[in-house]
């Protein structure tokens, strides 16, 4: 059934794609987490213009297909004279897209921190920003870990969008192997296994983090 020669013969190719996918995922993961957290804070600050920016971003990006967001970078940027590599476009698109979802998860987390925490910190003279950074976000992160895990898994799987714009990721190489060997089923099964190599440890790591943070308080 499974043709293991596909894996052994093309191991280097798989590995190259796997490396790119992992690289794109790590970059997009870090980027979307920072951007998403910033957007979440924008959405809940008392400053109206920031709220508008945050809301507009989330509502716009969240409600269009990922492929369109990637095209925005891949096809849109060249039209204004900025040409980036397909890999960069894909990773940027992935970051921008995922940030909208992460913003919503983080915002929910921030809102679930009791109001008294903000009041206690502010009444001790801490600024809004310092209170967010030192008191609210550390508590929100704990609440947000499970939904963030979902978003990060989605992000890793969504990174297959790079193959559409020849971003040399795992899926791109799987397509290439399939078209070279005509062994379609096994090729993609092995590709799937490489994705699992990324997603399963991530779930395990976040589960561990969740338990660890739960232990303290």
């Amino acid at each position, binding site marked *: 059934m499974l043709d293991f020669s596909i894996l052994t013969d093309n191991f280097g190719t798989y590995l190259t794609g796997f490396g790119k996918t992992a690289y794109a995922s790590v970059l997009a993961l870090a980027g979307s987490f920072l951007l998403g957290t910033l957007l979440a804070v924008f959405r809940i600050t008392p400053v109206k213009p920031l709220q508008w920016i945050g809301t507009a971003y989330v509502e716009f990006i969240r409600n269009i297909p990922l492929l369109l967001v990637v095209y925005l970078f891949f096809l849109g940027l060249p039209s204004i004279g900025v040409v980036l590599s397909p890999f960069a476009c894909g990773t940027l698109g992935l970051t921008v897209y995922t940030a909208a979802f992460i913003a919503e998860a983080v915002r929910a987390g921030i809102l679930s921190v009791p109001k008294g925490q903000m*009041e206690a910190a502010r009444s001790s*003279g801490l600024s809004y920003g310092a209170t967010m950074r030192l008191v609210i976000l550390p508590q929100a992160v704990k609440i947000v870990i499970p939904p963030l895990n979902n978003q990060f898994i989605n992000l890793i799987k969504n990174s297959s969008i790079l193959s559409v714009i020849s971003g040399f990721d795992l899926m791109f190489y799987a397509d290439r192997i399939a078209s070279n060997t005509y062994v379609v089923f096994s090729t993609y099964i092995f590709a799937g296994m490489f994705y699992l190599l990324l997603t399963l440890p991530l779930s395990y790591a976040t589960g561990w983090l969740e338990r660890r943070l739960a232990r303290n308080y």
Partner: protein
Amino acid sequence: MISFRGVEKHYGSFHVLKDINLAVHQGEVVVVVGPSGSGKSTLLRCINRLETITSGELTVNEVRVNDKKTDINKLRRDIGMVFQHFNLYPHKKVIENITLAPIKVLGVSKQEAEETALFYLEKVGIRDKAQAYPSQLSGGQQQRVAIARGLAMKPKIMLFDEPTSALDPEMVGEVLDVMKTLAREGMTMVVVTHEMGFAREVADRVVFMDQGRILEEATPAEFFANPREERARAFLSRLIRH
């Protein structure tokens, strides 16, 4: 130190504070009593601008609290606050709860802040809990940490918003004892509470509020023995009956 002059506050169409005039002087302990919803917590929370006022004038140390030019973070350094539900930071140890603001707001060194923290923990009688997390403490202990957290900023005024209302009855005493010590040492305190015993024993003045107004302001001796206002008499008689 604190002065309300004709202060009004509305929440939409709800008139929470009506023509509040009140002066609290240095070293005074003012206890605010009254039925639920009478506006006493709101009055307290206006002092450090957790609530904003609609009109009138409110000054703390001669600084207008609601003035746009007022650096509220600076003003708040001098005003400690203790809440009904403690509001300790659950992700930080007791000692970190206390040192956070001194380090980040006053710029005190970590070592000095920890020494100060231990001094106040000793004062509230739970120095041995410095390395514990708030969730490992009883309600009474948590509230004492909250008081130590407020004191560590060396404030000029301490505000207490129903500090014993969320406590089991047997833990009320330990918190009140700390507050009494503080009062005797000359701290300026504004206390919203239902603890009439505390008011009677410690207050320099009792302020009675109902429906957003200050109806009576008197020494505890006068207030408890012979309240002038009918509404205050009814309030006190209900307390005694239960």
